[in-house]
């Protein structure tokens, strides 16, 4: 009965009604996420093939020069993950690496575990800071003792695919203007819970394909803290990371401001552990999303102003980010208000049609991601996630959106990120006073 009515409703829609009822999808999301992504991705394959000889040459040069890579791993209470990370580093095809682990005031067995690994030479240098200073200071401590030409920043609860370091270094040998290369981040604990499985789909869409697209357009604005390869000289010019949270996005912007290119390398894979319950996930996103306001809209607002340092790509990068995340978030609430006020009687149909439209969009996006990058992982690991597709419109459309709106509001009104326990309170106090 409902389905008949739904079909009836759809067949009676005029073009203008479609536009009026479903404008967010047809005007914005379909273009931005489905058509643009698919189009660019399709141009990505020929580019990948075209560049094959360049990559072969870069690889040859890399193994000829064998530059030292410093893998830096800052973290607090992450000891239990370190042995697995070390094993994955020991198995790298590119092995001219040193591993520097900095313990940021752990109160568990982290120091003991890492000391043992250091004694076994599985870690080159282990530095235990008894006073917690926040992630940026831990990363900077590691940077201070890094001797490599390149610095790989990696989260302690992650591990690498065996070709990862080799692959992520190649772009530097293909374009000397590249300052940092972001690696792909996939979900390690994919089968832990529904929450982690849904995030696996989301990561495939937003990181594997999403960042490839941004990278090809030259407007990639973030290199994940979990997996990014930096030129050491560039990090030295910046004298390391600034106070977080959101320090990975912050340093990417600063590298862009120096005039370097930022690219994403989807074939260099890092697996990371993601929050396994909705509440932990909400906390993580709440922290991440606030940094959009704090860094894009406040600290680096100058990128959007015409000045001597103006770069069009930087402008687009920040504008794109602000527009799609911030304004389109507001758009959703406008749209919801519109439907509730003017089309309340049609709510059940409009909701269902939106759901189906976004379901189809998700299918297309995920299929594109699988088509391009599915071959780089175990056969069923990510492919079977397709059965969870029907949940994705609810996951991204409701759950993630509500957390994001709340984060933006709190940061705009109260600068809550400065009170986050993620940083030690002493550091937060100064950051807030200095309006960093």
């Amino acid at each position, binding site marked *: 009965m409902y389905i008949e009515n739904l079909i009836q409703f759809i067949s009676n829609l005029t073009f203008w009604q479609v536009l009026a009822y479903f404008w967010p999808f047809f005007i914005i999301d379909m273009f931005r996420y489905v058509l643009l992504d698919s189009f660019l991705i399709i141009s990505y394959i020929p580019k990948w093939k075209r560049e094959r000889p360049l990559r072969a040459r870069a690889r040859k040069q890399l193994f000829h020069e064998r530059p030292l890579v410093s893998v830096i791993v800052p973290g607090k209470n992450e000891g239990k993950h370190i042995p697995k990370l070390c094993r994955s580093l020991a198995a790298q095809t590119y092995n001219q690496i040193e591993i520097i682990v900095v313990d940021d005031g752990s109160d568990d067995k982290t120091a003991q575990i890492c*000391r043992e690994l250091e004694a076994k030479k599985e870690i080159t240098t282990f*530095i*235990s800071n008894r006073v917690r200073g926040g992630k940026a200071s831990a990363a900077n401590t590691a940077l201070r003792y890094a001797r490599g030409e390149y610095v790989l920043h990696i989260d302690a609860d992650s591990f690498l695919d065996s070709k990862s370091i080799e692959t992520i270094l190649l772009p530097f040998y293909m374009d000397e203007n590249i300052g940092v290369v972001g690696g792909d981040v996939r979900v390690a604990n994919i089968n832990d819970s529904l929450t982690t499985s849904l995030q696996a789909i989301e990561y495939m869409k937003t990181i594997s394909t999403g960042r490839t697209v941004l990278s090809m357009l030259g407007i990639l604005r973030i290199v994940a803290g979990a997996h990014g390869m930096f030129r050491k000289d560039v990090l030295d010019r910046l*004298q390391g990371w600034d106070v977080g949270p959101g320090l990975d996005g912050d340093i990417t912007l600063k590298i862009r401001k120096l005039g370097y290119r930022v690219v994403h390398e989807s074939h260099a894979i890092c697996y990371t552990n993601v929050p396994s319950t909705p509440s932990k996930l909400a906390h993580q996103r709440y922290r991440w999303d606030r940094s959009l306001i704090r860094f894009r809209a406040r600290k680096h607002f100058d990128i959007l102003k015409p000045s001597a340092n103006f770069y069009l790509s930087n402008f687009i990068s920040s504008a794109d980010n602000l527009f799609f995340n911030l304004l389109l978030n507001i758009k959703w609430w406008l749209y919801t208000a519109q439907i509730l006020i003017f089309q309340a009687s049609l709510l059940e149909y409009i909701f269902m049609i939106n759901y189906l439209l976004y379901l189809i969009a998700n299918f297309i996006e995920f299929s594109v991601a699988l088509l391009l990058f599915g071959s780089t992982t175990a056969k069923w690991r990510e492919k079977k996630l397709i059965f969870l597709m029907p949940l994705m419109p609810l996951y991204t459309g409701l759950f993630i959106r509500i957390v994001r709106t709340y984060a933006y509001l709190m940061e705009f009104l109260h600068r809550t990120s400065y009170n986050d326990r993620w940083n030690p309170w002493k550091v937060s106090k100064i*950051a807030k006073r200095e309006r*960093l």
Partner: protein
Amino acid sequence: MKKPVKLELEPSNRQLLDDKFETHLLSEINTIDATSVAYWLIEEEDDEAIKRLVEAIRRHPAPAIYLRAIVLLTKNNAKKTNTIDHGADALYKISTFDQATADTLSSDFEGVNQWIERIPNLSDHSDINTSLKVLRFISSRDTELLPVMTTQVHNGYDYPSISAMFEKDDDAVIDTLSFLQKQRLLSPRFITKTHLCSHCNGAFLNFKEVCPDCASEEINPDELIHHFKCAYTGEFSEFVFGDELICPKCDKRLHHIGVDYDKPSIIFRCSQCNHSFQEPEINSTCFSCGRSSKPEDQVLQIINGYSATSIGHNAAIYGLESLFSNILETELNLFTHSAFKDFIKIEISRTTRYKITNSTFVILQFSDLENLYIRLGKRAEEVFSELSAIFKSILRQSDIISARNESIFFIILTETDTAQAKQAIDRLTSGITQLLENNLDYSPEVLTRIEKIDAQLEIDNSLERLLENNVH
């Protein structure tokens, strides 16, 4: 009436004590009637001479000579080395030493002298076994033998009152004491512990922090500074500008530690290989042999004080030959513990391989043997010979026996199942009980544990269980 006797290396006329005390040259020591000596007096200025005299006394085989107390007289308060001070039983300044002091000392050492006289056949007794000499010395003093920390000996701790009995400065003193401890003749009391060179047992080690990568000793520590505002982290020296601390990243002045900056840790840097690290390795070089070793390889030595046990006091007077295990040893063939364990292994594989016959393992414990020693005194030897005879009559040539110590015995009864073993052991214990009850009106407690020898047998566990049951 015993009198103090002064010993000297060569005749001299400087001593004002000569006319008051009987004086002899060291070369005449065998002609002195040692039984009439109250204690030995030594008055020499030279450390070497004192050492020679003390050694000559302590190394003498006659108990009446080497056990006698030594009193050292010094001219002034000149500081003697610890080893020599403690090697003597008492130390006096010549100027304060008069007849009255000498008489007081005679009565002070009366206890030691009476102890010496309890030794049977004292006058023609000659001790060549150093272990027995040490045991007799400790027992005669009836105080705890204490170690002294000293740079004079190789392993850092000396027992000066007995070390003069030993020819060489090596580990013989410690070895002898631990042998007597193992025989339950001495009981140890923990005093301290020391780490020794793994190559030469030397106590004098130079400890150094070295680079864990290249072992270089040239390493320098530096404090890390974390500037909160910009998250910059670097070494202290990077921040120093004149009298101020200024952040090299953001050029801000650092004011108060804990408010705008922290010192999260200390990092070492190696000047040789440039390696950075927080935990340097520790290495030690031995002053004696010059070789290096890591702390985990060093020898950990427990340094004990020692006093004689009841068995020890008894054996000190009547000689080590009076010990039960010694007597058993002459009557039966006592195997060492390690040999016994080998026999157990062989029996286990033999019986499980052929599955024709059984053998049985027996533990025998005399729980109150120490009291028996005290009661028996010099009759111990005689009684123990008879006990040995009972052992001999019941055990067969093919049985294997080993003494864990004076009161615990391990036996393998070959080709005997547990029921037969129980009969044999019952006969043994009732024989022993009868002997002691009839002759001494004394009923000893004999604990036994009988186990079939098979793959599950762990003799140390069995012993533990026997001792546990004994406690409960």
